């Protein structure tokens, strides 16, 4: 709880300073604000506690179990399911996909009927979910092989830059943002624990060098896949 107070104090101070000193307006609904801040504190404290007790241990123990089992096919299937399953129901992604469908309809890229927009949005969602599944598979494969992460990421950057030149202008902002919405508060700890667990149970792998990097791939692949989707759907 003390830690959570320390985590939140900066936000409260920034907002108070701007509201009272710069904009010089009184705070609206003070009682609701106080309850809200208290809930955020409580929630953060519970979340960190649950992280240490539930999410980290299950991520690590499953990684160890798969490493002992020695079946690469099952491990990669699990990696794909985890990436796809955590993304397809992501509320932030649903919002961005709906927004993207509106943009596409306004730009006359698709018909502006509800049906066309709905199918465009769900196609985009599946594309992003598939790309995150692909990213986790690629990342797990990298841990098994011990490839350096920088070649994958920098190669991805180069691909993003090249695709940006050719992709329709309207899709670019959405593609860049879709990389940011795929890594939710529950996915990040799980995937991190999985990567670190795998790297520490395979001999000759360093958890510091091989364990991290899954999240980076999961933020990069959606940009590439969404731009490809924008080019194909025209």
């Amino acid at each position: 709880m003390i830690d959570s107070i320390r985590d939140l104090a900066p936000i409260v101070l920034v907002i108070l300073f701007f509201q009272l000193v710069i904009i010089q307006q009184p705070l609206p609904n003070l009682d609701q604000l106080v309850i809200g801040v208290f809930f955020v504190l409580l929630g953060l404290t519970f979340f960190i506690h649950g992280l240490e007790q539930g999410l980290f241990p299950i991520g690590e123990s499953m990684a160890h179990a798969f490493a002992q089992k020695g079946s690469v096919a099952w491990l990669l299937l699990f990696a794909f399911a985890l990436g796809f399953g955590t993304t397809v129901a992501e509320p932030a992604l649903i919002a961005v996909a709906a927004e993207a469908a509106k943009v596409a309809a306004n730009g006359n890229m698709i018909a502006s009927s509800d049906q066309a927009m709905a199918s465009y949005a769900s196609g985009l969602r599946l594309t992003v979910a598939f790309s995150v599944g692909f990213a986790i598979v690629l990342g797990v494969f990298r841990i098994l092989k011990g490839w350096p992460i920088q070649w994958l990421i920098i190669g991805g950057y180069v691909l993003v830059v090249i695709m940006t030149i050719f992709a329709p202008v309207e899709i670019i902002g959405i593609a860049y943002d879709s990389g940011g919405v795929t890594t939710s508060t529950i996915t990040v700890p799980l995937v991190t624990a999985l990567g670190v667990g795998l790297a520490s149970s395979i001999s000759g792998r360093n958890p510091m060098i091989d364990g991290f990097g899954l999240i980076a791939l999961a933020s990069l692949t959606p940009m590439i896949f969404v731009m490809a989707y924008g080019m194909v759907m025209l």
Partner: protein
Amino acid sequence: MTMLDMITQIWSTMVATVTDVLPIAAILFGFQFAVIRKPLPNFAKVVAGFIWVLVGLSFFLIGLEWALFPLGKLMAQQLTDPVFISGASEAVSAAEAAADLHWQDYSWVYLFAFLIGLSTTIAEPSLIAVAIKANEVSGGSIGIWGLRISVALGVAVGISLGCYRIVVGDPIHWYIMVGYVVVVIQTMFAPKLIIPLAYDSGGVTTSTVTVPLVAALGLGLAETVPGRSPLIDGFGLIAFASLFPIMSVMAYAQLSEWRTNRSKKHST
């Protein structure tokens, strides 16, 4: 807001969080029992942990909805309002006030962007999780606060620069490409151990707390600065917030390494 409203809102947020987490739990437990076929060690403790996460996340989201988001969005609107920025006391229209503003006039916006980027990142649960893990894996040589503050500084600089870009109207891809080039150059010189973690930091920052506030700021600016389109300029602050932490985390590692080397030289 009555007591009853509060209770229904708490209930509906809980239900929404449970439906988000169910597919993840199904995948985890499905593979555990069908493929691994071993009992989970501390099964009861893990389930309890999941419940803590659910309850915690629900309260966290409700609190954000009630306290931080409305205020943050309101502030972003007020600060980007041309009438406020030009300090015009006489009743001029927003369009008139906006027409003779220069990028220097937006200094409060840049400061707000910097501070809100810094403070929301410090409170970002995903980043706390990654920092705990990095500290554990590195045997304590990467400090939890060191990592969190360097990521937060990266986000702060990224968002301020992103706001400046919206005000001036430069095309986004030049900034992003220069950023990529800097990341590539730093990758060659930074300590090898930090690189994967630095790359991960970019994806971690754009999570629960930061996205709504930053998006509100970007859209507010793009709507009020003449000649900007919310569609093209409003997006892209998130991209800045993901790119800059990669640089700042590598810089933090480079500085730490340099300081260690210097103290070694002094002690011999």
